[in-house]
């Protein structure tokens, strides 16, 4: 996984709450067996609407998505993360994320920055008043910064220490775990024999 330290890109205001993963990518787009190519399914139902934010310039080249609370709830599909990444998103900012989506993002290298509700409201206003405004997300300092002047936004975001460290170092989870193989083998030795097996 590529290491993530800081990212600056055009912010996209998604004025919606409860954006579940069925909205991010509907199930009919989940049939690929590859890890890429999911861009065509991203927000598929809304993309038909010319006024949808991602159909507007300059938001169409945005890389930092700013969404309302409960982003990524529902289905466990990691395809939601891949679709966002395939489109070019590096960061999603929201006051609250679905647990599985947040976990998946951390594994795949998409940064989920959890901020206060008010920060999202201010970012939405700024991005809509001044389309094309870039947002800088600094994972080392855990800050988001956008704009200058009276509407400027600078605030901190939350992310758990372990995910932050892994993203900063670009570490692969499986390798980290396999370093503890003796502990896994020792655990297997003491598992009760009545536990079921499939083989």
């Amino acid at each position, binding site marked *: 996984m590529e290491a993530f330290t800081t990212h600056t890109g055009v912010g996209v205001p998604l004025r919606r709450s409860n954006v579940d993963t069925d909205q991010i990518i509907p199930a009919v787009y989940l049939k690929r067996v590859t890890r890429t190519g999911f861009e065509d399914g991203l927000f598929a139902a809304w993309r038909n609407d010319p006024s949808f934010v991602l159909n507007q310039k300059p938001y169409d080249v945005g890389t930092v998505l700013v969404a309302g*609370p409960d982003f990524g709830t529902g289905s466990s599909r990691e395809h939601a993360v891949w679709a966002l990444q395939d489109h070019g998103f590096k960061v999603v900012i929201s006051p609250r994320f679905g647990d*599985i989506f947040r976990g998946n993002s951390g594994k795949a290298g998409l940064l989920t920055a959890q901020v206060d509700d008010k920060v999202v409201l201010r970012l939405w206003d700024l991005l809509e008043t001044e389309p094309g405004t870039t947002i800088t997300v600094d994972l080392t300092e855990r800050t988001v910064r956008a704009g200058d002047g009276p509407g400027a936004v600078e605030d901190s975001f939350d992310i758990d220490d*372990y995910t932050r460290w892994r993203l900063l170092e670009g570490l692969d989870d499986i390798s980290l775990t396999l370093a503890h193989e003796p502990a896994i083998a020792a655990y297997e030795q003491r598992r009760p024999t009545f536990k079921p097996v*499939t083989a």
Partner: protein
Amino acid sequence: MGRTLAEKVWDEHVVRSTEGEPDLLYIDLHLIHEVTSPQAFDGLRLAGRQVRRPDLTLATEDHNVPTLDWDQPIKDPVSRTQVETLRRNAEEFGVRLHPLGDLDQGIVHIIGPQLGLTQPGMTIVCGDSHTSTHGAFGALAFGIGTSEVEHVLATQTLPQARPRTMAVTVTGELPDGVTAKDLVLTLIAHTGTGGGQGYVVEYRGPAIEALSMEGRMTVCNMSIEWGAKAGLVAPDETTFTYLEGRPEAPEGADWDAAVAYWKTLVTDDDAEFDKEIELDASTMTPFVTWGTNPGQGVPLSASVPDPDGYEHESDRVGARKALEYMGLEAGTPMRDIKVDTVFVGSCTNGRIEDLRAAAEIVRGRSVADGIRLLVVPGSVRVRLQAEDEGLDVIFKEAGGEWRGAGCSMCLGMNPDQLAPQERSASTSNRNFEGRQGKGGRTHLVSVPVAAATAIRGTLSSPVDLEPFETPRPSAPQDRTF
């Protein structure tokens, strides 16, 4: 201080625990299906890794499989590729697979319990958010993403941050005609879709203890719909009776050892939960959703709510968008809403008990003109059991469609979909925009409400049905499954 049930199961599975890092948890059972696994197997191949414990792994085909002509090659080439990829991966990595056509094929969360593989005190994961279903047995079961599927395949473990714990205590007794589904829909409307975020929930109290295993599975299944990581019910005699004699349940001395252990899986009297909620089952009624998330629900006897009545601006905006999508007007009585399709099935309500309940209401009646009733058993064994009991005939004589096993219209990955603006009453778990087909409008309901709605054509409960003037033909013989 004592521990909660969830904490006991967690502690039992910690392989490694270090300050500042998530615990490394051992996984007792890894369930796999065709949609969220191909990229995980591909990752293993690229890294030259094996499946560490194929003997703790089970695969089936459920999400995209057709429920008609299921004995023929799958017509949709993309779905076929996905299923064939799973078959190749299962073969290459030595994973047991129950493919389409196999007697044990079915929705992954139906077949685990049915086989007796789902047992108290286990850790169970699957690349599917409704894995919480297995919590009904006192297992710690949760959905994971594809990267985590790969992680479990390679290591049989998962790094997991210790979640907070919550108790949902349901006192009293559910009134007649009110089901586990109504209970959980009432709960979600109360908490909102994010109310459980970060928590492992234990459902407890007399109303939960009184539920059958099927009912407990329905409740635990929908834990994710209010954001909870997992939902558990402490195992008891109901659990042990359900499990005894199932193909993969322990036998003889192992059974005795297992039951002795399972009986310790209760929350200690002096344990503390991080949060507690209490609900009274005796006040509950048939409950249905009007909006586009499972928290947007009201009693069937109520009306579509007025968005302006919500306290928070974001709720008002959400409600307005939902009503627009659903094509509904505030103030319309829920019972006046006409549907086009009724779907009975899914990992929420696709078990034999559900089909029996639906058949009992439909028996001797006819589906309303212009209504499509789709009955999709959760597994092949459920289908065969239902056919053995003559339930299929009841549905077909009433004008319903009887299908093969799978996830079907719950998520519309196969041909079973709603057309744009088509409206369903569905026993499934999600009413998200487009969930059952692009532009489709979903009302989540219990099995009795679904069956009564199919007869009347508008959202209804069995009390709305005309009584029979002459006695109905006798019920098919009830057999245990």
